[in-house]
């Protein structure tokens, strides 16, 4: 099986040059839960060159409704180890590096990464993630709660900081309601925007795309 055969359906869509750009790219995914697991799987299936995965979580039953990489037999195992195993079963050509840690004030992004996916589930870690990035890095934020989700692309040092934009947002008390279809929809948009960034054509730079998951509407908000 050749790479051309493996990727033949998407090469028909976007061509050889774009495929080569994708295979040369490195992306860090912060949080490998509802959003991050699906984003990682889509990028690996597409043939991304290298992925860093950051998480410190253990797989539990409430994860299984939406975290597509995990199964009943994975309960109690670390998300990162299972994610790497599943991802490499899907595409062994992709390099998957694990960073088993909670994202806090000590976080520093690896120097070979300039595109970062915020698939985290809390604002504190999101702000630490942004602080740990080098200038010029692209940060794609995704968030979901119940019937709504949002995606936003920022360029560190040029865009308004995430922490400024989200001032006034509040972390809800307790568990956040998230459905499998909702998380997968937002993940799909995030993966698509990550591919746009690899090509140098982000579509959501300094622009929220707000997705209504119940009435299926899209809104845009410039920031």
């Amino acid at each position, binding site marked *: 099986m050749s790479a051309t055969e493996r990727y033949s359906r998407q090469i028909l869509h976007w061509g050889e040059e774009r495929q080569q750009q994708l295979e040369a790219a490195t992306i860090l995914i912060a949080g490998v*839960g509802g959003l991050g697991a699906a984003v990682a799987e889509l990028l690996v299936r597409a043939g991304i060159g290298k992925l860093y995965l950051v998480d410190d979580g253990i797989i539990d039953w409430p994860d299984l409704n939406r975290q597509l990489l995990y199964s009943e037999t994975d309960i109690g195992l670390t998300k990162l180890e299972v994610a790497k195993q599943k991802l490499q079963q899907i595409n062994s050509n992709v390099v998957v590096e694990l960073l088993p840690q909670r994202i806090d004030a000590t976080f520093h992004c690896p120097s070979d990464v300039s595109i970062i996916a915020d698939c985290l589930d809390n604002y504190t870690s999101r702000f630490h993630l942004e602080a740990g990035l080098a200038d010029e890095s692209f940060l794609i934020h995704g968030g*979901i*709660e119940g019937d709504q989700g*949002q995606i936003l692309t920022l360029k560190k040092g040029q865009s*308004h900081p995430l922490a400024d934009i*989200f001032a*006034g*947002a509040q972390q809800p008390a307790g568990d956040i309601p998230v459905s499998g279809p909702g998380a997968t929809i937002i993940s799909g948009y995030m993966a698509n925007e990550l591919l746009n960034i690899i090509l140098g054509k982000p579509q959501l730079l300094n622009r*929220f795309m707000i997705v209504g998951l*119940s009435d299926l509407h899209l809104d845009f908000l410039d920031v």
Partner: protein
Amino acid sequence: MIKVQFYSLIRLLLKQEKFELPASDKENVGQFLQRLQQQISTPFLHKLLDRKGELILGTIIMINRRNIHHLDKLETPVVCGDVIALFPPGAGG
């Protein structure tokens, strides 16, 4: 005119995407939102303000793409041509 854009849960609550009101002299965003609520049949200020009229967390309020937390919060002046956005983001991932 001052344009107000409603997003996500605020949009669902009010069942509309936007509303426009003429500007008023020396009005701040807190006063403007009170006046806006009088024009809209569905109450929404309980999502933004506590009983004392102080800003509560949960919804991002922007004026011309700037979060009012980095301006003068509810005291931020609004003038003709301003665009106000009310957006409660999703926190999960």
